[in-house]
């Protein structure tokens, strides 16, 4: 059976098992917060950039799988299962990004940054113990918040925004290196 067939058959049960609530709640709060802020002021703000971090965190939180240990014996690797989950949640993430970008008077939410931050969260989830998935989910959000708080527009702290493909490449390398964990 090819990998694609396995993935196709796994879509429905995986979609049923994904914890959608964290992502959907975060997306709803972000869209409501951005809508309220833009209704009150047309001054450009950092909400779109912060949304990239928060949505990446919501996507990584969807990787939480209480059945992870039981599924370890299956031929489908944990990495493949996680990538399938990320592919499933990418739809709501994209919709929320479009909504926040449309509502926000500032620059649009960066797609490349969201992808880089999600991969960074996946890398953290790969190397942290399974029960620390919330910590891994918090990593991209904390990164973005710290960058904005310190007003860092240059240097490694801003790489999720300035050099997202570098961050994505390093994160992907870390994910591949830890694929057997």
């Amino acid at each position: 059976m090819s990998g694609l067939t396995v993935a196709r058959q796994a879509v429905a049960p995986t979609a049923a098992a994904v914890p959608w609530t964290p992502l959907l709640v975060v997306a709803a709060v972000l869209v409501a917060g951005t809508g309220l802020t833009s209704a009150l002021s047309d001054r450009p703000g950092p909400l779109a950039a912060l949304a990239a971090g928060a949505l990446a965190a919501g996507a990584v939180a969807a990787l939480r799988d209480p059945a992870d240990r039981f599924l370890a014996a299956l031929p489908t690797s944990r990495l493949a299962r996680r990538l399938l989950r990320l592919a499933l949640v990418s739809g709501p993430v994209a919709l929320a990004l479009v909504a926040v970008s449309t509502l926000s008077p500032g620059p649009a939410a960066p797609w490349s940054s969201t992808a880089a931050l999600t991969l960074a969260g996946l890398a953290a989830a790969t190397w942290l113990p399974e029960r620390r998935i919330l910590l891994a989910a918090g990593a991209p959000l904390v990164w973005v918040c710290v960058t904005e708080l310190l007003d860092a527009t240059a240097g490694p702290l801003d790489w999720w925004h300035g050099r997202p493909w570098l961050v994505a490449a390093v994160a992907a390398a870390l994910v591949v290196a830890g694929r057997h964990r």
Partner: protein
Amino acid sequence: MTAVASPLPVAAAAATAPGRRRVVLALARHELRRTLRLRWLLPALALTGLVFEEWRGPQQWNGERYGYWFTIPAVLGVAASLLAAASFHRERTAVAEASPAGEAERCLARLLAAAPLVAVTAAVVAAQAAYIWSIGGLDLGDEPGRTLRAYPTLPELAQPVAVTVLGIAVGAAVGRRVRHRATAMLALVAGWLPVTFTYWAFQAPVVAPFSVLQSQPVDVPLGNGDPVDHPAQWLLSAPNDYQVGWDRLVVSESLAWWHDLWLVGLAVVVLAAAVPRGRRQLVVVGGTLAVGAAVAQFLVYP
């Protein structure tokens, strides 16, 4: 036999008032240790220090430092919110009904354990105020209405402390009521983002009384007159990208006091969602306080 018999004296002792107090204090100490073990407070303090260093840097416009000094200790308010949520989320784990400490005692203990977080914010605010005094005050206003010796007033200094109280109440309510810990934490952070990072969006006269972080001074438009015609002691703000004419900058202590009270009232209302008993009383008391403080803010708004 011992394992069955030993809880009974504890339960009997907890039924008395002094015994109940001991149980609550013991639980609070235990909860505080757990809270500190989460190791979120130290990174939050370190981040506060870094933001403080960034705040001390060169200003981009006159009065910039005065305009957002209060956002620095607000970082601790958000951290307190997350810590309270983590603590109250543990309350969702079922405990035997025969436990010597009921949910009311456990809730009280969790709130007591959160109190030191308010003290930490107060200490950071005190340190920041001491720094401002040590450098002889902050720059505020534009010539001809400018001072280099502006000091935040006491009610302004109290705002981050009140925000921390609100943060604990919101965290407690979300932690107690939201099923999944990840949802509670991420929703809290997402909710705090607009009110902290874009606090300036909530400063219009009709919105400022209901804001979480209220910035001072308040801008009062003066029209297109000559700025030198106004009294010499007035602080003024020159036209810029966000204002057409000259504004008078007014630091209103009464507005700041009422806003602090609004935050406390709001915290009491929100806390009602986290407690097992006395919800109606909390909503009535907190709601009265919040509504009264909001109305008073409109009345004293410059």
